[in-house]
C-alpha cells in the first residue's frame, strides 16, 4: 500500500474504521478531549500491533483505571521524564529478539516532551532508535491542573500565569528535532485526521527515529466549549498560527491543509482563533501584534527551509 499524499487536496475517503476495535468506548477523557481522537487515527494505521509508552500526563488517566483499559493495544506507563528512554529499550529489545511487525510509539504531552523529557527525547533521537515519538501538544500541564509549560503560547492564561499570561513564546520542539537530523519530523493536528494518518503511514515506512508534533486543543485547559475541539484546531491552521509540514530529505514539505496560508492575505485574523478560547480572554492589541509577528517569522523560517 502506498501512503496517501498529505499534500493532495482531493476529497478524502474515510479512514479505515477498524480503529473502533482498538480504541474502545469508555475511557476517562473529558468531553471533547483530543487524545482519543488521535488514538483512533493511530490505531487505524497500526491496529493492535503497537506499544504505546506513556509518561505521566492526561493520557495516563484517559486510558482508564486498573483492571480496565480502553486501548486494545499494548501500553506501558512510565515516569514523567522517561518516555523516549523506555521506548529506546523496548525498541532495541524487539530488534534483538527479531520482532519487526510491532510499532513502538512514545506518546507524551508537551510537558513530558518540551520540558522534563527533553533530555531523554534528545538522547533517543540522536541515537536514532526505531520508534515514533508523538508529542501531543495541549500547550500546558493539563493533568496537574493547567500549569504553564514551555510549549504554552505567548499571552495564554494558565494557573501559573494567572494574571499577566505567559510572557514568552512557545518552544518550537519540531524545529529542535529537525536540528537533530532524524529521518522524519512532522507537525500535525487532531483537526486534520487524514493528514495525520498519512504522516503516520509515511513514518511507519521509515526506520529510525520519527517525531510528530501533534497540535491538540484541550477544551478544559484552553477554556472553550467541548464541541469546538476540531473547530479550534482548524482555526489554528487557518490563521497560520500552526503550520502543518513534514521534514525529510533535508527540507520542509508543506502539507496540504497549510498550503493556502503561505499567503498571509489568505490567513484568517488571529483573533478568530483567540476569541474562542477563555485562556486568551482580555488579551491586549499589543499582545496580538506580538503573536502576529511571531507567526510571520515562523512562516518565513518554514519558507526558507522548503
Amino acid at each position, binding site marked *: 500500500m502506498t501512503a496517501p499524499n498529505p499534500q493532495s487536496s482531493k476529497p478524502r475517503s474515510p479512514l479505515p474504521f477498524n480503529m473502533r476495535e482498538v480504541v474502545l468506548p469508555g475511557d476517562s477523557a473529558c468531553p471533547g478531549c483530543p487524545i482519543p481522537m488521535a488514538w483512533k487515527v493511530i490505531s487505524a494505521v497500526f491496529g493492535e500491533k503497537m506499544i504505546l*509508552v506513556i509518561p505521566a500526563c492526561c493520557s495516563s488517566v484517559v486510558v482508564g483505571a486498573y483492571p480496565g483499559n480502553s*486501548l486494545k493495544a*499494548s501500553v506501558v*506507563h*512510565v515516569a514523567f521524564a522517561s518516555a523516549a528512554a523506555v521506548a529506546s529499550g523496548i525498541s532495541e529489545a524487539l530488534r534483538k529478539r527479531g520482532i519487526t511487525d510491532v510499532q513502538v510509539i512514545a506518546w507524551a504531552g508537551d510537558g513530558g516532551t518540551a520540558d522534563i523529557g527533553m533530555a531523554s527525547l534528545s538522547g533517543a533521537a540522536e541515537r536514532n532508535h526505531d520508534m515514533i515519538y508523538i508529542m501531543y501538544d495541549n500547550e500546558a500541564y493539563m493533568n496537574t491542573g493547567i500549569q504553564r509549560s514551555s510549549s504554552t503560547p505567548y499571552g495564554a492564561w494558565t494557573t501559573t500565569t494567572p494574571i499577566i499570561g505567559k510572557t514568552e513564546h512557545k518552544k518550537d520542539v519540531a524545529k529542535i528535532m529537525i536540528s537533530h537530523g532524524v529521518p522524519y519530523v512532522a507537525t500535525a493536528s487532531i483537526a486534520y485526521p487524514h493528514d495525520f494518518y498519512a504522516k503516520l503511514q509515511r513514518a511507519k515506512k521509515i526506520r529510525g527515529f520519527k517525531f510528530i508534533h501533534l497540535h491538540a486543543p484541550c477544551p478544559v485547559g484552553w477554556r472553550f466549549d467541548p464541541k469546538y475541539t476540531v473547530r479550534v484546531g482548524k482555526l489554528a491552521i487557518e490563521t497560520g498560527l500552526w503550520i502543518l509540514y513534514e521534514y525529510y530529505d533535508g527540507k520542509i514539505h508543506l502539507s496540504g491543509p497549510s498550503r493556502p496560508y503561505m499567503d498571509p492575505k489568505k490567513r484568517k485574523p488571529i483573533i478568530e482563533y483567540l476569541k474562542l478560547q477563555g485562556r486568551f480572554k482580555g488579551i491586549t492589541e499589543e499582545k496580538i501584534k506580538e503573536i502576529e509577528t511571531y507567526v510571520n517569522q515562523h512562516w518565513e523560517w518554514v519558507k526558507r527551509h522548503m
Partner: protein
Amino acid sequence: MGKLVALTGNYAVAYAAKYAKVDVVAAYPITPQTSIVEKLAELIESGELDAIMIRVESEHSALAATFGAAIAGARAFTATSSQGLLYMHEFVHWVSRARIPAVMAIVTRALAPPWNIWPDHSDYMDQRDAGWIMGFAMDNQEVFDLTLQAFKISEDPRVYLPVMVGLEGFILGHTTMPVELPDQEIVDQWLGPRRQEYVIDGREPLALGNLAWPEDTEEMFMEIQKAMNNAKKVIKEVDEEYGKLFGRKYGGLIQCINCEDAKYFAVSMGAWTGDLIEAINKLREDGYPIGVIRIRFCRPFPYEDIWEKVQNAKGIIVFDRSISYGAWGPLFSDLITGLYHYTNKLPTMSNIVAGIGGVNITYNDFARMLTNFVETIEKGEKPPVFTWYHKR
C-alpha cells in the same frame, strides 16, 4: 572446567554480565563504575558478547531503557555509582514495582557535596526501601559470582524482582584479584533462558501500570513483600546449587566466620569485612571470642539467619559504612529491630559508623574498636549505642 584470570571488580561485573548472556546493556559512565561500561562496550563491539548497547544520555534514561528492554523480553543490565544512582532513583522504584527482573551493579561511592569519589555505602543504602533484592560482595570472585547469581535470583518465578549487586569503588572496583571464570556451557544450562512474568512485545495487547485504586495498589505492593520473603529461600538455593556446580558456596544471606564458639559478634557488609576478619583472627589469638557475620544480602534482611547465630551472644557490634542522619547506621537499625522480635533481652549492642567519604579503616582500627567494645562489656560497663569512629 573454569579458568583462573586476574580481574578488577569492575571487570568481574562485566564478565558476569557476559556469562549471563545479557541482551541489552544501557549505561552511563560515572567514576568509579566507568570501566564496567567500557569493558562491556568492548565485549559487544568485538562480538564476544552478542548484545545491544544503548549509550544513553543520563542515568535516569539508563535504568529507564534497561526497564524498557526488560519488559520487552530482553535480559537487561546496567551499572552505576553515587550521583548516578541518585539521579535514577525514580526508576529504581519503577522497576521493582513493575516486578520486572533486571540486574544492576552499584560500585559504591560517597555522595556530594563535597565532591568525593571514594567509597562508602551511602549511595547503595539510600535505595533500601525500593523493593530491590540487595546483595553486596566482599572480593572480586564474589563480585563475579554474585552478579551471575543475581540473574538467576531475579528471574526466579517466586521472586521476579530486580537485584542490585554492591561492590566498593576502587577497593574492589579497580583492584585486580584472581577470579575463576566458570564453564559457559554449565552456566547456560544452569541459568537457562530469560524468564519473566509478562512480556510486552506487542504480540498480545497488554497494559502495564494503569492508574489503580488504593486497594488494588496496596495488594500489588503486598506481593513485593511476599516475593522478598520467598527470595530468602531462593538466595540460599541458588547459593547451594552454585556451590555444587562451581565449587563456591558463601552461606546464603550471610556468611559467618568463627561464629561457632563466639560470645561476641561483629556484623558488617562489603570489602572492609576482609580487614575486620583479619583483625578478629589476630584478636582470637589473644583470647577474644569474636565471630564475624558478614551481611551478603541486606534486602531481604537476614533477621532469622543472624538470630540463629547470635542467640547466646553477650555483645554485638555493627559496623555501618553509611548513616541515616538523625538516626543510626541502617544495618544496625535493621538488626536491632529484627532481634527484638526474637528476644526482649537483647545482648549489648553497639553501632559504629565509620569509613564515610572513603576514610580508610584498617585492620588496626577494627582491632582497636573491637577490644574496646569487648573490654567495656567485660568490665560490666555499657558501651555507647552509637559512635562515629573518626581517626583525626
